[in-house]
């Protein structure tokens, strides 16, 4: 019993560390991606037109938001499946 409890907390720690890494990655992306895409596209793609560069930066920021929402939805589906798989062997043991 105690071995199973230790294994459960270790996997919980790994899961929380993965979630923290994801959050840090999205925070860094939201900080750097829009402004760097503004300067990069202004110089190399739109040849000095700053309006198009600003629109590109806004699209990049909203892309980060959509990616975050999709990732959180996928993670929720995955944890739901894991909870279902964990319930099945327990119900078999009770027989």
């Amino acid at each position, binding site marked *: 019993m105690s071995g199973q409890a230790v294994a459960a907390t270790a996997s919980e720690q790994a899961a929380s560390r993965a979630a923290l890494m994801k959050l840090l990655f999205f925070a860094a992306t939201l900080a750097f991606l*829009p*402004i760097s895409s503004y300067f990069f596209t202004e110089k190399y793609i739109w040849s000095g037109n*700053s309006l198009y560069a600003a*629109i590109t930066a806004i699209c990049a920021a*909203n892309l*980060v938001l959509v990616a975050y929402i999709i990732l*959180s*939805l996928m993670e929720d589906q995955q944890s739901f499946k894991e909870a279902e798989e964990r319930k099945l062997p327990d119900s078999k043991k009770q027989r």
Partner: protein
Amino acid sequence: MASELCPPYAPFFGFAGVASAMIFSTVGAAFGTAKAGIGIAGLGTFKPELIMKASVPVVMAGIIAVYGLVVSVLIVGNLNPSNYSLAAGFIHLGAGISCGTTGIAAGYAIGHVGDSFVRAYVHEQRVFVAMILILIFAEVLGLYGLIVALLMNTRATGLVDCN
């Protein structure tokens, strides 16, 4: 004609526009982040596995600050200490204020909506889609201010030749 339409204090209004775009949108984003963070802290004590999904209001409030940053960088790129007319200064000031104060409005809405929905998310998980929908409506308020700022900024170039 040159000194009337292009006075030496004209860049003051341009720089005030840059500052107000950044300052006001950051105020809105800070309020949204803080208020939603209070709700997430409440949710975290009961269901810590939902924190990742519940942090969506915080990300949306961060995007409001990104709007202000982009408008600031855009206006700064068009500023010029010489050959800068007073009309261009007023246009840049209007662009900065429009982006900044709509950012305050959007951040205020995101904060209250995020806080209430995240607290409800503890009890009922199906409110997540409704939360995303209402947060998107709150976010486009800041987007409208950004669009107006971009439109105004395109009018500011090539207005008056000071020389």
